[in-house]
């Protein structure tokens, strides 16, 4: 039932709004609204009940194992939530004077310093509200860099075919042409193709390392040399930082700019789709262009650096300073873990991935890059199974739901057919992984004995398979009281 179906005309929540319509109202008639908006008229209890019950229909980290590759679904410590929501933090207006926010700003400043250290970059801006916006900022800075040098012929961004969709989308949004380069059999970028692709038009290369194939790009130093020699800059998509935190710093790998998804590696919650926060770090060459605001610490006082302090900055990307509350959560998380904890993230994320990969391989699942270590994630391909039985990666994914596990990422990266990108994250215990292996084994058996059952999964969820073809064909995007 939709919330609107609980609605009754003139029902009201008297506690939640001023008790009368005020007498004073000088809005000119021609600017007034004539018909009330379609907001539900429901009691407080029915609202609470409706949304509490809706929430129960979600899988989530707090309820299920959620090995969604590339998404780093790790535990979101509850203290990060409650401490970031202390009333003083919540009530602070973004334009309140800086001296009324020294506590908050101290957290932001320290977070900048911590992120610089962790990435090996020279400076960090916290403004970006998600990975894709981080990319946009990074590529905009690359553009600003070339423009500042009068180097205006650079119109291309090189992107490996394994890259996340935001990479090419971002490059185009920034006015660049995308040059896609292939991956070799072992999951590395094809170096010959890279060499062929670089040239005077190359503005930069966007790279995810470990790549979205779940392997570490070994020749990254060489790639860096090739791109830099051609006059391009290197962008690091830090969505996969969880795999290498503390082990290797992007700055040391030769990257000029990086975004890191705090809503992955730094454990801020995904919230059913956001908000995130994706601070951007730069090497010296891009320092002047970093977006504002940035927190500075001068003579014992924290303050925002703005246009005046940073005249070459590419400017602002959000009305204020980005997703402050998300940044607070990340700050608290890092302080809980400490320096030691940074290493452990990557170590145990990697251990979990390699263990799960080993166990699934033993069951007979085909690993896409069998000769490689898994990073924090790895890929199973169902190609052979599909060819033999017709059971697809999506079928298996849906069947996993029946067994109480969220599905891995399916059909991404695009270059591996029938793929499942599996990322267990470091916060899962061995027993949970073992239970997942048992479920995968059961499904393998089911595929052998009753493939149609697997193909028509899910069976034990509140709904059977959703018809998304119909969703796109018969567009129904808003509820209509007329029915």
């Amino acid at each position, binding site marked *: 039932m939709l919330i609107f179906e609980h609605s009754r005309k003139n029902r009201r929540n008297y506690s939640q709004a001023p008790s009368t319509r005020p007498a004073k109202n000088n809005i000119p008639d021609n600017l007034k609204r004539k018909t009330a908006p379609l907001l539900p008229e429901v009691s407080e209890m029915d*609202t609470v009940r409706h949304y509490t019950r809706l929430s129960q229909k979600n899988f989530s980290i707090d309820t299920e194992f959620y090995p969604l590759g590339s998404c780093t679904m790790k535990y979101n410590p509850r203290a990060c939530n409650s401490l970031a929501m202390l009333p003083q933090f919540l009530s602070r207006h973004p334009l309140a004077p800086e001296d009324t926010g020294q506590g908050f700003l101290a957290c932001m400043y320290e977070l900048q310093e911590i992120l610089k250290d962790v990435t090996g970059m020279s400076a960090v801006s916290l403004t970006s509200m998600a990975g894709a916006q981080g990319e946009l900022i990074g590529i905009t800075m690359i553009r600003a860099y070339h423009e500042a040098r009068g180097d205006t012929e650079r119109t291309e961004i090189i992107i490996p075919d394994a890259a996340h969709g935001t990479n090419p989308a971002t490059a185009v949004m920034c006015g660049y042409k995308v040059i896609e380069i292939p991956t070799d059999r072992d999951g590395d970028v094809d170096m010959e193709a890279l060499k062929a692709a670089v040239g005077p038009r190359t503005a930069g290369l966007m790279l995810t390392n470990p790549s979205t194939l779940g392997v570490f790009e070994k020749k990254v130093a060489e790639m860096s040399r090739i791109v830099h020699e051609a006059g391009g800059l290197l962008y690091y998509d830090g969505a996969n930082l969880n795999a290498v935190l*503390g082990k290797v710093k992007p700055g040391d790998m030769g990257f000029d700019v990086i975004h890191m998804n705090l809503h992955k590696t730094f454990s801020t919650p995904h919230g059913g*789709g956001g908000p995130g926060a994706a601070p951007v770090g730069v090497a010296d060459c891009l320092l002047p262009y970093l977006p504002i605001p940035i927190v500075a610490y001068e003579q014992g006082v924290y303050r925002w650096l703005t246009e005046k302090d940073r005249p070459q900055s590419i400017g602002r990307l959000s009305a204020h300073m980005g997703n402050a509350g998300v940044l607070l959560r990340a700050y608290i998380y890092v302080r809980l873990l400490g320096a030691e904890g940074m290493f452990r993230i990557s170590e145990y994320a990697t251990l979990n991935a390699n263990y799960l990969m080993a166990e699934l391989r033993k069951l007979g699942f085909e690993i896409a890059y069998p000769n490689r270590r898994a990073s924090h994630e790895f890929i199973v391909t169902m190609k052979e199974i599909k060819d033999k039985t017709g059971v697809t990666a999506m079928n298996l994914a849906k069947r996993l739901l029946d067994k109480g596990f969220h599905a891995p990422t399916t059909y991404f990266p695009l270059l591996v057919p029938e793929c499942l990108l599996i990322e267990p994250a470091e916060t899962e215990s061995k027993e949970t992984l073992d239970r997942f292996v048992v479920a995968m084994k059961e499904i393998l058996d089911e595929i052998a004995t009753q493939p149609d059952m697997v193909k028509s999964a899910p069976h034990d969820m509140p709904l059977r398979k959703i018809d998304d073809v119909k969703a796109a064909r018969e567009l129904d995007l808003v509820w209509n009281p007329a029915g």
Partner: protein
Amino acid sequence: MPFIPHTEEDVAEMLASIGAKSIDELFDEIPAELKTGKLTQVPVGLSEMEISRLMHGRAQKDGFYLSFIGAGAYEHHIPAAVWQITTRGEFYSSYTPYQAEASQGTLQLLYEYQTMMASLNGMDVSNASLYDGASALAEAALMAVRQHRTSRRILIPQTVHPIYRSVTRTIVRNQNIEVVEIPFDPATGQVAIDKLDQFAQEEFAALVIPQPNFFGVLEQVDALTDWAHGKQSLAIAVVNPTSLAMLKPPGEWGQRGADIAVGEGQPLGIPLSSGGPYFGFMACKQELVRQMPGRIIGRTTDLEGKEGFALTLQAREQHIRRSKATSNICTNQGLMVTAATIYMSLIGPEGLYRVAAQSHANTLALVEQLEKLPGVKKVFGSPFFHEAALQLSVPADKVLNSLKAQGVLGGVLLENYYPDLKNTLLVCATETKTAEDIGKYVEMLRLALAASA
């Protein structure tokens, strides 16, 4: 090892299964010369008890103020139920609803949100959120340019939030889209309609129309919308969602209604939080739906015909369309939309009207009382909604400082954004302010003015 459950035994068994001797061995594909791994700026880990004390201390330091600041972010009452439900693990810790069957909670909620938001704006459809109001305006500009096809210029009045304009410039510049600004009439604080004549011969993809504008002033939205449509430009509305309970929605502006409406969703149940996370909303006419950026949820059925919800029109999005997507946006502000949807349900249409009307009435009362003080002058003559500019006869920054020392934040200095508007405060009193609060402000301003005189 906070949050890592592995016992030594677990590790041993897992390594054995992998066939590795140590965890370190799992990193053997990383070239040795790249491994550095020295962290000098990350302090040693704290226990939850310790970080809790640290954060409480920092929060105490920041304290509480009686605030009359608006300027794009507004203090409204947020029902306790909103965040108690929003932070339930099932909403808080789930991902984007890629697996529809395991995400019906979030999906249905978003469909409900789209319905509410489209209706609030008087539009046909809504997406499931963008980052914030400022970036939503930039996306609307890009969308207008895609739709328009021939012009790469956007007309933006200077009465639009200055930072929205700056963010839009930063974002659209990359695509060689030009932002042309229209000055405002210093008497009315509105778009100078007579100045529009100078643009009569030029082609623009869109005209941006703020309502209320950054000064709180109400624009002549019908005339502006029709002017844009008369030139084959799109009309992009930038609106405050609370105000829409009282004000004519963008879909009804002028003869044909605005084409796209965007804005900052924060007033709908989102705490001020030093600036974020908030969420940008975007609604538009049906014919523009395929140009919209961001997630969209559709109602459909399952195999057996039961009602269900799913992400739809994904062919606009980067994860399917990659370089041909309408935007690069992926992660949006889902949890904020969850809160806003619950807020709108709790408050209902009459409640939202009252919040808007009371906020408006409070600011009216504040302005009326302040205007009576010698040395305070209302800057603009036009009607306004819940926010107004007041010029002082003395240095305004000093006055703000002396109010602050008494625990009152008296507004923002418009001079920071409009160098010509000297000693001018933008003030706002939402429904959270009582008559006593307003009285306190008035009295303290009186004293501060007297002291400065």
